[in-house]
């Protein structure tokens, strides 16, 4: 299919069209509810942001894209900031994104400064998120346009690089990450061959389907597996069971936006770190938070205060993890490569809405993309007042036994996976993938690379096979072009570097163990 090029950095005509489609009550209501749902889910220990996204994707399939996608983005944004509430109040990060927030957030609660910590976290997260969204808006269009010129060989080498990055970085072990990627690729191949249309890996009749349903796969891998993990851990963690008083109603010492700018160095540095980490496939909000925190600590005028309940520590951690949310959909939208689990789920939501992430996204769905971008900015603006309300409400909730939530989530998994195609086969697939993902997690195999590989599998296969058909089977096609050479070299270097680091670590471990 031939696609027309659209010149310019930002297409103003599309921006206005996008703005018009957003100026209705439905998208605004979707954003508000998404933020509230996301904040509560993110704040609940055991319920992750990915789970929130996975179980809410099926709720959006009958909504128009300018309502459904902003809702999911708001859920994601809300879950990122919500995870900091339980980190600050209870010393339990709601999701891994808030791991670094605990370091200064909880000591602030112990000092009776919980409200100040939560507000500082919310404001810095929203400010950094806005910065990251602006970077996305500025670069998405030119990057997508540039990627339109990619041929199958460039695309194949880029996709392989993304798979190796995700496999290597989304877990502790490269080999296990790659194992997960291979499993994801195998799952992506179940169904009809994308070139000749013949059945492949045909078990239980699945080979005659076009492919395994993406939503069922995502719900199983993220939501059901997470619930099974929680059931196993028997996490009967009650919200509000922390030893420190969570009631922030009487606390007067809050935090203002003006005060935030006193810590502008921390805010700017962490926002940049979070944005860069967000763009890199394989990295995520937890890495960004920790990296932002440690970098700001190094350059701070008061490094000795970090870890003792210093507000700058909370700002550094929250700004870095908040900045990930806009940037990590940049590779998804422009290249069709989801860099992490959240982007993978959002990618599925885009597909469900008939928007194919990738270089042609602005050609095919330009105005919708700009309304989604504008919705992201609007979500940030609404996040401040809504977040303040949610944090107060959350601090008053005394007890939500986790085991009460688990069956509801399982029901949502079943209903969600069924309702997209209205067939029981998808429920069976979701249950099977959920159990497989649970077993993978039990032996420390990361699930996210499997999901990313599943999503990228068909594209990667098509690109590799097309390249080989063009070159008559010669592998030279993957190094002939400067861009494919660059991507292939990066893949080889990355693999070599990871192996080198692993060998050094093993050698040092043996030395310390006295072997």
């Amino acid at each position, binding site marked *: 299919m031939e696609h027309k090029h659209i010149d310019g950095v930002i297409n103003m005509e599309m921006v206005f069209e996008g703005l018009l489609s957003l100026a209705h009550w439905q998208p605004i209501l979707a954003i508000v509810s998404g933020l509230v749902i996301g904040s509560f889910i993110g704040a609940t220990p055991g319920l992750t942001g990915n789970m929130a996204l996975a179980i809410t994707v099926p709720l959006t399939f009958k909504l128009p894209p300018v309502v459904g996608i902003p809702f999911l983005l708001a859920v994601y944004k809300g879950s990122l900031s919500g995870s900091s509430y339980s980190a600050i109040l209870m010393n339990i990060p709601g999701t891994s994104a808030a791991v670094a927030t605990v370091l200064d957030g909880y000591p602030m609660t112990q000092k009776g400064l919980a409200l100040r910590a939560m507000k500082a976290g919310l404001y810095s997260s929203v400010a950094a998120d806005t910065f990251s969204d602006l970077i996305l808006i500025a670069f998405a269009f030119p990057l997508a346009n540039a990627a339109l010129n990619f041929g199958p060989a460039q695309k194949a080498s880029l996709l392989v690089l993304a798979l190796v990055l995700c496999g290597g970085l989304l877990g502790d072990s490269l*080999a296990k990450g*790659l194992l997960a990627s291979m499993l994801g690729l195998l799952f992506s191949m179940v169904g009809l061959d994308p070139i000749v249309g013949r059945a*492949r*890996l045909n078990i239980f009749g699945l080979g005659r389907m076009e492919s395994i349903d993406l939503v069922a796969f995502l719900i199983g891998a993220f939501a059901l597996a997470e619930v099974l993990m929680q059931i196993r851990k028997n996490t009967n963690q009650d919200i509000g069971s922390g030893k420190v008083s969570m009631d922030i109603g009487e606390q007067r010492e809050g935090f203002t936006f003006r005060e935030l700018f006193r810590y502008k160095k921390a805010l700017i540095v962490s926002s940049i770190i979070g944005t860069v980490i967000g763009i890199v496939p394989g990295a995520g909000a937890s890495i960004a938070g920790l990296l932002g925190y440690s970098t700001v600590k190094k350059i701070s005028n008061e490094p000795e205060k970090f870890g003792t309940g210093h507000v700058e520590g909370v700002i550094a951690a929250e700004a870095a993890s908040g900045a990930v949310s806009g940037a990590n959909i940049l590779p998804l939208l422009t290249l069709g490569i989801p860099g992490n689990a959240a982007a993978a789920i959002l990618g599925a939501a885009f597909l469900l809405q008939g928007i194919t992430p990738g270089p042609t996204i602005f050609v095919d769905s330009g105005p919708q993309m700009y309304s989604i971008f504008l919705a992201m900015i609007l979500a940030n603006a609404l996040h401040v007042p809504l977040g303040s309300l949610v944090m107060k409400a959350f601090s008053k909730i005394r007890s939500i036994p986790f085991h009460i939530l688990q*069956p*509801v989530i*399982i029901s949502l998994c079943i*209903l969600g996976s069924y309702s997209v195609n209205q067939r*029981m086969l998808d429920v069976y697939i979701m249950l099977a993938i959920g159990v497989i993902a649970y077993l993978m997690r039990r*032996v420390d195999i990361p699930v996210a690379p499997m999901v990313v590989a599943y999503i990228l599998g068909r594209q990667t296969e098509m690109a590799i096979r097309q390249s080989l058909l063009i070159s008559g089977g010669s592998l030279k096609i993957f190094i002939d072009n400067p861009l494919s050479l660059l991507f292939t070299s990066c893949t080889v270097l990355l693999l070599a570097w990871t192996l080198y680091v692993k060998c050094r670590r093993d050698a040092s471990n043996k030395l310390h163990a006295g072997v």
Partner: protein
Amino acid sequence: MTTGTRQNRTDLYSGLVAIVIAGACWFWLIPFRTANAKEQGILKIIISKSANQPGFFPAIVTIMLFIVGLVLTLEYAYAHKGSEESLSRLLKAAFKSIKAENKMLPIITALLAYGLLVNGIGFWTTTTILLGTLLYYSGVKDSRFLALYLAATMGGLYIFFSVIVQVRFPSGLLF
């Protein structure tokens, strides 16, 4: 037992499972469950780089999966070179790990039973029974609370999915 040892053992388990899956793909799923693969021969498809064959990419991924599995297994063997970890001790550890999943067995059985019964009995009835079983299993024994909770949750889900979104669920014998 140190975390390191556990890590090594999970490496071994993952490696062995990867090799088994690769074997299943190579000897069964690709030749017998993939179009043209048996007639053409998997090795021939790979060597001649027949990219138009449906079995081409699955075969490549299977080889890579086998290599990753082998690496993980060899990593374990290398880490335990000269150590006293015997096969029987390893099997005991594996058995212990499986036994630790005891708690999960009723849950997985309930999910399996759900999958088998849902079409025959009906979606909403089976889902309500599953939900009730899970709640009961997780310690909710108060029957009044259980009934109220189930009614509220399933009612809410029914209104959203069946009435608002208008999804048609299998009705089966009951509902």
